[in-house]
């Protein structure tokens, strides 16, 4: 107890040195702690998402791109599949199907065109408002609403895919009709709308005023006036004029979530699409993301090795600091000896000081680990999935 009193007095007296040593210890210890925390949390987040999504379908290509896009709305856009595949899976009778169209952004948040089934499937609760029910309506994830400070009754405008995209996409105003309760998943960061709305953004569907006839061809076809206006907003007045062109089977779908009715259905579906000649690929997100996490953990093992080396170097530095401070404390140690201190008195004192420093450093590192866990969510996904 008295030794602890003296140790603390020494550390307090040399507080700058103590602080530096505590920080150094904390830094060294926090690297493995923080990375472990990040990885654990990210693994939970990512695998939880993957686990709740039994099957994904999309165009043949990178399975990982498909999974990351469909699960976390990030990364490279995989080649689009089509509604034909959606219908095919529906008609197979083995699964419920949820199409996802993830290509456009509004105010920096991904616009996820999907069906109401997605909202049911993820079990969303509403903070305010209701689900989208008409084209042009959108529902915001909790974080999007918070970040942009918008809510029901307000609107967002989609961004052109790139500046040079002059052909198809007029920015479309999305009317916010609902805000989701926070879920702690990537859904918080997305804007949900009916997939038909996404198609309108893409230029597949459009609306205009009632055709202003410029003339009627001899075969009876009405020639529309060139001054036909393209709407950037879907209103009650013009909604009915919105329509889609081309064969609905060809409408693009980024990814398709399939919810097989049972294990047998799942096996049959997988078997059906596993042929590499099939333009559609089918993936099970769970093992895929598991593999990704395994790679991350392999990377973590390398990082840990680096940390060990750095820690050894730091230990040497710490040893040197202790040695030098002992040199400086020779007079004090000698005084204690002269005053009759026990043989181990000074050793005990120095050891206790080190122990206190290490404990404080470790405590700080632990706090850093805790704090980092609070910050992950988004961060981790962006680490794992290269952002756009």
């Amino acid at each position, binding site marked *: 107890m008295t030794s602890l009193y003296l140790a603390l007095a020494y550390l307090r007296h040399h507080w700058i040195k103590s602080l530096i040593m505590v920080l150094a210890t904390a830094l060294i210890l926090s690297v493995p702690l923080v990375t472990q925390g990040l990885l654990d949390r990210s693994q939970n987040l990512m695998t939880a998402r993957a686990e709740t999504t039994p099957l994904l379908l999309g165009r043949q290509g990178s399975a990982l791109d498909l999974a990351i896009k469909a699960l976390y709305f990030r990364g490279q856009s995989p080649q689009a599949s089509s509604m034909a595949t959606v219908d095919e899976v529906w008609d197979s009778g083995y699964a419920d199907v949820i199409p996802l169209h993830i290509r456009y952004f509004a105010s920096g948040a991904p616009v996820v065109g999907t069906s*109401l089934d997605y909202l049911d499937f993820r079990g969303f609760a509403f903070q305010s408002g209701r689900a989208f*029910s008409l084209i042009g309506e959108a529902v915001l994830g909790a974080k999007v609403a918070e970040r942009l400070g918008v809510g029901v009754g307000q609107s967002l405008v989609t961004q052109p895919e790139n500046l040079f995209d002059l052909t198809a996409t007029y920015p479309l105003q999305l009317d916010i009709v609902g805000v989701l309760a926070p879920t702690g998943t990537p859904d918080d960061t997305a804007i949900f709308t009916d997939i038909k709305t996404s198609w309108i953004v893409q230029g597949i569907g459009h609306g205009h005023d009632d055709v202003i006839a410029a003339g009627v061809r001899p075969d009876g076809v*009405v020639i*529309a006036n060139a001054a036909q206006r393209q709407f950037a907003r879907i209103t009650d007045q013009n909604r009915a004029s*919105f329509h*889609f062109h081309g064969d609905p089977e060809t409408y693009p779908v980024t990814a398709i979530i399939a919810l097989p009715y049972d294990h047998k259905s799942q096996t049959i579906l997988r078997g059906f699409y596993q042929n590499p000649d099939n333009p559609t690929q089918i993936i099970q997100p769970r093992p895929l993301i598991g593999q990704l996490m395994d790679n991350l953990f392999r990377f973590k093992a390398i990082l840990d090795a680096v940390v060990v080396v750095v820690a050894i170097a730091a230990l040497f530095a710490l040893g040197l600091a202790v040695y030098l401070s002992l040199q400086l404390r020779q007079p004090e140690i000698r005084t204690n000896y002269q005053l009759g201190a026990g043989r181990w008195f000074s050793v005990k004192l120095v050891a206790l000081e080190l122990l206190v420093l290490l404990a404080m450093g470790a405590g700080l590192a632990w706090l850093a680990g805790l704090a980092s866990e609070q910050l992950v969510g988004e961060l981790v996904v962006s680490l794992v999935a290269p952002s756009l």
Partner: protein
Amino acid sequence: MVLALRHGFLLLLVLAAGVSSHAAAKPLVVAVNSPLAYFAKRLGGDAIQVTMPAPEGEDPAYWEPSGEDIADIQKADLVLLNGAGYAKWVPQASLRRSRLVDTSAKAKDRYLPGDAEVHTHGGNAHEHGVFASNTWLDFKIASLQAEAIATAFKRKLKLDASQVDAALGTLQGDLAALNGLAKQAGEALQGTALVGSHPVYHYLAAAYGMDMRFIHWEAAETITEENEASLAALQAERPADMMLFEFPPSASAVQAAERAGLRYRVLDPMVNTDADFIQGMRDALTQLKP
């Protein structure tokens, strides 16, 4: 004694709550038009709640529901669509595909072309509303639609299969009878050229061999000169003998038809009515003779 009474009262309350919550748990079925709603009621009976959301007097095919109307429809356990592009609002709305039933899906090969609206974008013509959509006026298609509803009731709402099948049997019997009546009408009308006051009878005409062309009259309203001109043009091309109205026509419409030398009959497609579909159709078909 008081205690026992109190307990008895509590028990009653609990029972009442159980009954009412059970009642609230009845699956909700939304049908886009009255014929489908009628079929649904016949097939589901007391086990379900059926609504047809278009307000009274509105044509369900052209009704434009608000977002809130759709939000109500989204709550339905099953939404019965007519198919063939019927109800313009359907493509604008977000509905759960898993809860949609395209009742005429099995009759896709029997869809008939409708009144095409065509417009061009930079020279590429495209058509809207390619199919005529009053499919139930071909009672064989109507029978398939009833069957599709019955299947959905059994599979998706898990209604008692034997009850649904029994109801389907009688309903299909009724529809077969209508089919017979329509056939008789078709035969009786051989040699009679018909004009539909509105393009709503494609399936009836095609299925039962009726010679029918269409104009665009609002039968319940005053007939304009333009309306008369279009009929005159039709008559000039090839004279017709009889006109079919969706509703009892206005005096002005009756006079206009008579001026053009046409008799008239009323055949309501029954898109928005609480009336008994079978009874209504039977009555309309029986009076459909030259």
